[in-house]
């Protein structure tokens, strides 16, 4: 069982490494690339804490082999803030509106919310709840997460209108 040569772009940077085919993408990100933002919550594709973007789509990286992501573009929570370090509107809204308590679900939740707003910039409350239905939070009761996403959607549309 030989190692395979893995090549992908992660948060805009090209990455190359040798990895065993059975390596899960979440382990590759956390252990090989030291990107420990995406978390391992359930390890069974239920909780969404490991959510990353693969080629512009939200995916649970605990259920993807590293080879499946060959030649793809990955975005993790580490790639969401602006290059100058200021927070993205979704991150800022979670901070301002108490969209987190312990913070364990937050990287996956924000990465998913970020993508949801790209897919549907003006979601209804119901669309937000369905859109984050693959992400579990044990603390907040979701109310403030939904509120934060609504605020971020407004912020982003105001910004877009101003441009």
């Amino acid at each position, binding site marked *: 069982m030989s190692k395979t040569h893995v090549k992908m772009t992660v948060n805009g940077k090209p990455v190359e490494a040798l990895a065993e085919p*059975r390596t899960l993408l979440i382990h590759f990100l956390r252990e090989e690339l030291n990107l420990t933002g995406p978390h391992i919550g359930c390890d069974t594709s239920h909780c969404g804490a490991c959510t990353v973007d693969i080629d512009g789509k939200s995916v649970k990286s605990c259920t993807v082999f590293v080879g499946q992501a060959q030649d793809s573009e990955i975005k993790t929570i580490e790639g969401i803030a602006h290059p100058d370090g200021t927070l993205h509107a979704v991150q800022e809204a979670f901070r301002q509106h108490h969209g987190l308590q312990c913070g364990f679900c937050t990287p996956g939740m924000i990465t998913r919310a970020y993508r949801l707003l790209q897919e549907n910039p003006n979601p209804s409350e119901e669309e937000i709840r369905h859109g984050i239905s693959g992400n579990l939070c044990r603390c907040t009761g979701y109310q403030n997460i939904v509120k934060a996403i609504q605020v971020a959607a407004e912020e982003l549309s105001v910004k877009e209108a101003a441009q």
Partner: protein
Amino acid sequence: MIPGSFDYHRPNTIDEAVGLLASHAGDAFILAGGHSLIPMMKLRMATPEHLIDIQDISELTGISVNADHIEIGAAVTQAQLIASADLSTHCPILSETALQIADPQIRNVGTIGGNVANGDPGNDMPAIMQLLDAAFVLRGPDGTRNVSARTFYEAAYFTARDESEILTAIRIPTPPAGHGHSYQKQKRKIGDYATAAAGVIVTMHNGTCTSASIALTNLADTPLWAEAASNALVGTSLDATAIDAAVSAARAITDPASDGRGPKEYRTHLAGIMVKRAIQTAHARAA
């Protein structure tokens, strides 16, 4: 949970994939979205020595719809089914069902081919395929054959597919224009497999039901096409007596397990309720 070791292959054509399956007979598995297979590999309930990833095989990705039939490539994802305007117009039960599978992340990668080839009685698409009288197109070293979805499922995780065959596409006779449809799925929480689920399509003409098809999910160790229940609706106005007859006929063929989703009696009871709601909703939507 770390899966066992395997060699990873990523062919570009169906023929290459079939060649790999044949040369590693029994030790090689197709990897589509991986969202049934990888969890099984983590539990070491599946320990393939070779995985054949089909994501680069463009022949497996199309959706085509005409008046006579619908053809869906095996690697089409649940998200792509939901997004297809053609399918929403001509066969809306497919997107209605896909939307009730798992969650957005899983629907982005989970494929229709993986969902129907898997053989897990909890998968939602197999019953819909039986309902629509779909055929599964299988390609192996000796050529291509079609197997009816109504005869494909033998027992949990046992299907008519030979281990050297790949499912390439699904062919569905286009349902009549104006048909009514509904997939009713009772689950413990969003994203869960069904406690009990029923799909129904009906066609009405001047208030009389001229065709009907009913199928059930997770109520036995295979999906169930409820033929007698379907026949109980044809020629009626879908009045309460006809619905009761269909419900009894459907319940009679179920044999659900008693498990975390509830005892057998409860799930059988729910099966009847799902059938009734699905008939009523399909009727209301029929032209």
